[in-house]
């Protein structure tokens, strides 16, 4: 309960600060939108020639992309801690976090949230609805609930990977380029994994579970029965990886050395 209160306290502070710089906000939203359009155009161009890719139609691929945008937006809004090492460890901001009576990861998330990224949820929904309509997908009454559940599961899986990687900073202060690399690998999750070879598919499922952010959950709504097991595992995978990530984080905090002088 205390954590919910604190979430809204930080959020209202965030809104206040953001609204003072309205221009920035608009620019950011436009650049997000542009980015998403480029990705969509890329898919359209690739599928301009071939209608099918390993048994997936163009509209199905677009549906997966649209779905992917939703957990990705949730992730970007709350877990976008790519600069954690630089900001909190090298500069020693973690000192301040650790003298406050709230779980350290929760504080970092509250301080780094970027709610404008939630706009991606809208873009994602529009794309999903467009692709869903042209595919004539039938909708059960419980599908919207599963949709939300799967989107949250995917966001947790995505977040878990980034939390675990941010935690590396507690052990080693060497600059790494892992973060940007992860963003690239993350993109693989929005294409059907059976277009890749076995090793990559295994990696994207069990090591860096990016496939659970896009293809696997989306496959359920596309009625791909052979993938259902993976689809329904999405929330579970999300929670398991997220808990593992928090364990790694908590272990890391004990190794925190503070900024030397």
């Amino acid at each position: 309960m205390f954590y919910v209160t604190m979430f809204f306290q930080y959020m209202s502070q965030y809104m206040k600060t953001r609204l003072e710089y309205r221009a920035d906000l608009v620019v950011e939203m436009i650049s997000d939108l542009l980015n998403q359009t480029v990705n969509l155009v890329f898919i359209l161009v690739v599928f301009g020639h071939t209608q099918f890719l390993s048994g997936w139609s163009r509209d199905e691929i677009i549906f997966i992309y649209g779905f992917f945008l939703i957990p990705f937006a949730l992730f970007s809004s709350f877990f976008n801690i790519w600069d954690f090492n630089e900001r909190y460890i090298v500069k020693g901001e973690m000192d301040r976090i650790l003298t406050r009576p709230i779980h350290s990861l929760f504080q970092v998330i509250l301080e780094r949230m970027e709610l404008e990224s939630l706009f991606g949820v809208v873009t994602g929904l529009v794309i999903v609805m467009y692709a869903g309509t042209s595919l004539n997908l039938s909708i059960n009454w419980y599908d919207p609930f599963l949709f939300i559940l799967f989107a949250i599961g995917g966001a947790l899986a995505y977040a878990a990977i980034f939390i675990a990687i941010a935690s590396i900073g507690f052990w080693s202060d060497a600059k790494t380029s892992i973060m940007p690399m992860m963003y690239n690998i993350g993109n693989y999750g929005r294409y059907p994994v059976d277009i890749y070879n076995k090793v990559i598919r295994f990696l994207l499922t069990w090591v860096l579970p990016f496939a659970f952010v896009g293809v696997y959950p989306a496959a359920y709504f596309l009625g791909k029965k052979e993938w259902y097991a993976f689809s329904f595992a999405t929330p579970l995978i999300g929670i398991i990886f997220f808990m593992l990530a928090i364990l790694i984080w908590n272990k890391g905090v004990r190794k925190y050395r503070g900024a030397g002088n």
Partner: protein
Amino acid sequence: MNNAIEVSQLRKEFKSYSSRTGLKGAFRDLLTRNYKIVPAVNDINFTVKQGEMVAYIGENGAGKSTTIKMLTGILEPTSGKLRVNGMNPHREREKFTRTIGVVFGQRSQLWWDIAVQESFRLLKKVYKVSDEQYNEHMGHVIKTLDIGPLLDKPVRKLSLGQRMRCELAAALIHNPPLLFLDEPTIGLDVLVKLKIREFLKEINEKYNTTILLTTHDLGDIEALCNRVVMLDEGKIVYDGELDALKNNWAEEKEIHFQFMNHVNLSELNSLPLQFSTDWEYDEKNQTYIANIKGEDENISQLISAVVSHFKIKDVKIHETSIEEIVRNIYEKGMN
């Protein structure tokens, strides 16, 4: 609970990496890096009672900040026992941090971009302080520290002195029984220093707040602390009263005079005084320096004797710094 802080055999080691020379060395560094283990805090013991004000001093790199970071739950000790407010700071961190206040002079504890009062408002929620408690306690703090006019400014726009007063107020929002201050007066001008000292003394009297502070300013210690714990290379080399420390290791006081007219050293030496005074002449600055020992009384006697015999241009009293005391302890040994 009588003891605010109990520390035994507390130790913190850091790995310090060194790189090898040459191209071959660089390649070997890639595989295994050379490192030494350096004890920043080396098996120290001390206890602080509730309500005490203790100065924790030592040269740069002595391990003061590292100790404070362990006491506040930021760093986990390498070994040793640690109880602060009856808790293990690092293990019970979230419960523990409700019972302490922390100020680091070198690093802001406030959010950089938001107005001071927004920071206060957020911290009030973080520490679950009720409106009545806040208004009663913070109203007074804000008035005493004179930060009312600063409240609607973002922290990044404040001067150092303004910021430090706000930091102090922020650390006290939940009125903690124990306060850690790491160089709270560094870089501040005299008036702000005085205000902060006065405020700390008042808080201590009013709430019996325990205060552990590090400083390089002997004035801070004289104004606030009876007890001094001195650290050197991670070991405690002195734990006792300030007076005893000063009497044993502070060199005689130096008083610097500049005169309007020419004065002979022999004239100065023959001034009628009840205690012995060593006079020197510093040619470069055209300054006469009196070295005296003993009571502070003697200073005013000396100055009034000089003033009544000669016309003076300038007087300066040179305080022994903590660094000089540490150096003296080194030269003369600890006994």
